[in-house]
């Protein structure tokens, strides 16, 4: 029975439709059971996220299975099937395998390399397992898909570079400082983004954290939230002298950190690098501070530019990841075909062994006086004949499976040797 995947995703279906088709776990359980009960599918897994709804399965006629699955889904959600049907894509066999690998490896995601999808596929797999709709085919497919996803993450950098402004700031800091452990952070202002960036820095080992705010109570509150120290507004310049990274996010209309102020503190810093992350609009740090040696300043637009470059870098890496998925798909197909011929090889061996053992038993029964040596010789002779005969058909089966033309050979072997179906 062929593997298939059918569904819709952010690539072709609008959000209005996707949100109407999204289902929670309980409904999903119900749905899986209903779909399995129709008998149209042998195995089934339903993946439902905010960006895609897909049914993976094994079915004699994938088209029928797809209609059955989506009819049930649409009934559940009160959406007309006619609305969904034209948007559905169906991939069979090789394409289905490639699709499963690409989705799990986050190559088909809206933001390439986003990490959630792997967890979502794992959850869908666990749910289908709990509903007993996972058979050997989907089991092999998804176990491999998880392995491929891991490989893509470690061997390419599709998930390496930050695609959010606050993480981009942390990454920049890591290109200036050898490590963030022990780097002092000064947070100026109480903006949400500033707090987020400070939190990321602290998670990476930055310490200590100072907080400056025009409102003293707010400074204290924020300092408590970040396990830092509140510093009075007048001491901003003094604080500048002793820190490595400054995050500013005040609502001030004028810059709160001037070039002159930074210049005054640089003398005492002995060329220790100072990194300004200015998330405020209007900006808090005067543009001129860049010109000072060992001072780096990034405003929100600069950070966005870095994010754009990071996204381009991810897309470049995605090209490599696609190649990797392609190779893994080919490998998996070979394995799958081997898996298909192995039962036949086993039953062929069993069949001939059965005949051989029976005939040897009969012969030996007619020779009660035969010595131990003779008995062993007869046994060995028969085994050798069987093995010689088996050699050619088994090699042929293996060979044909690698070439992808094993189906007719399997039939032939079954017919010729009178093997039982399905064994």
């Amino acid at each position, binding site marked *: 029975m062929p593997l298939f995947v059918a569904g819709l995703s952010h690539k072709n279906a609008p959000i209005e439709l996707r949100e109407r088709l999204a289902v929670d776990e309980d409904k999903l359980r119900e749905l899986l059971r209903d779909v399995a009960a129709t008998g149209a599918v042998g195995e089934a897994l339903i993946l439902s996220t905010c960006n895609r709804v897909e049914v993976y399965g094994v079915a004699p006629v994938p088209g029928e299975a797809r209609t059955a699955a989506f009819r049930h889904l649409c009934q559940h959600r009160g959406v007309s099937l006619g609305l969904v049907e034209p948007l559905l894509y169906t991939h069979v066999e090789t394409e289905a395998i490639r699709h499963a690998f690409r989705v799990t490896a986050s190559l088909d995601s809206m933001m390439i390399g986003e990490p959630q999808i792997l967890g979502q596929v794992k959850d869908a797999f666990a749910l289908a397992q709990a509903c007993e709709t996972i058979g050997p085919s989907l089991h092999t497919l998804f176990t491999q898909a998880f392995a491929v996803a891991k490989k893509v993450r470690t061997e390419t950098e599709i998930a390496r570079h930050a695609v959010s402004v606050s993480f981009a700031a942390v990454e920049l800091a890591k*290109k200036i400082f*050898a490590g963030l452990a022990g780097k002092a952070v000064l947070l100026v202002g109480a903006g949400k983004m500033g707090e987020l960036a400070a939190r990321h820095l602290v998670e990476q080992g930055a310490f200590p954290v100072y907080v400056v705010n025009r409102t003293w109570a707010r400074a204290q509150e924020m300092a408590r939230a970040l396990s830092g120290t509140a510093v009075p507004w007048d001491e901003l310049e003094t604080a500048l002298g002793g820190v490595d990274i400054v995050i500013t996010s005040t609502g001030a209309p004028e810059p709160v950190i001037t070039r002159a102020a930074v210049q005054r503190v640089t003398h005492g810093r002995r*060329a220790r690098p100072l990194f300004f992350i200015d998330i405020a609009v209007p900006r808090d740090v005067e543009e001129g501070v860049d010109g000072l040696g060992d001072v*780096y300043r990034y405003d929100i637009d600069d950070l966005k530019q870095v994010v754009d*470059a990071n996204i381009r870098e991810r897309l470049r890496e995605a090209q490599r990841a696609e190649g990797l998925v392609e190779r893994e798909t080919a490998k998996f197909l070979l394995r799958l075909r081997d898996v298909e011929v192995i039962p036949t090889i086993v039953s062929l061996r069993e069949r001939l062994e059965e005949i051989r053992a029976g005939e040897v038993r009969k012969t030996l029964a007619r020779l009660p006086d035969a010595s131990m040596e003779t008995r062993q010789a007869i046994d060995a002779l028969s085994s050798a004949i069987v093995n010689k005969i088996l050699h050619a058909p088994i090699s042929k089966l293996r060979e044909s499976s690698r070439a992808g033309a094993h189906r007719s050979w399997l039939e032939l072997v079954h017919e010729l040797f009178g093997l039982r179906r399905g064994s």
Partner: protein
Amino acid sequence: MHPTLLNLAIIAYVVATGLSLAYLVQREEWIHRVASLATVAGWVLHTIALLARGLELGRPPLGTLPEAVSVAVWVIVLLALWAERQYGVKVLGAFVLPVVLMFSVKSASSRVLPGLEPALSGAWLWVHIGLALVGIAAFVLNFAGAVMYLLQERQVRAKRPGNLYYRLPALETLDRLTYRTLALGFPFLTTGILLGLLWAGRAWGSVFTFDPLAVLSFVAWAIYAATLAGRAAAGWRGRRAAYCAIAGFAALLLTLGAGLFLPGRHGG
């Protein structure tokens, strides 16, 4: 040098250089792995070639400048292999190996081996040359670190991350690499030069005569001394220290060039 082995070593270095440069553009891990392998293979072959040559001559293979340069290359590659692991700078090879290649091709193409003056012998001479070579090797890395620093600094300042931005390590890491190699190379170079002076005084009766290599090596030494003092006392870092490293290395290259091409006591 042992010609065949040395040629094999140079071929390995050529392969390593090509792959290291390719790794700058094409980030495939296997390229880096093969480049590392080629570097190590080249270094091992080089080691055997030097040993064979030493046994053949019955003295360290340091008697002529081409020989000495070959040994310097050997030290540079060893240091580069160490620094790459120590600082996690996978692209280091792309910056060090071209220099290595330039030196080793130069040393291999000067095949003329003039007989040594009787004055040029004795353990002190070998120590003088050996120490100076380790110093030079450290300064090649110092130079590579400085170039990488300046490139990365430009990327960070331009706020437009390019290909190199993603591959080069943090500015602070590169600054540490240049500081460490300066601190390592300087005492070696200093002692090497001092021993040279002492030994020249004993061999020729005069401590200092106008020898192009000697004069230029003082210039290089002075630049490095000033950088080290600036770093240690005035807290120089970053760009300024990187420019100094490049100036020092330029002087050092001129020194070696003078030794290879101009007549003088060091000429070969």
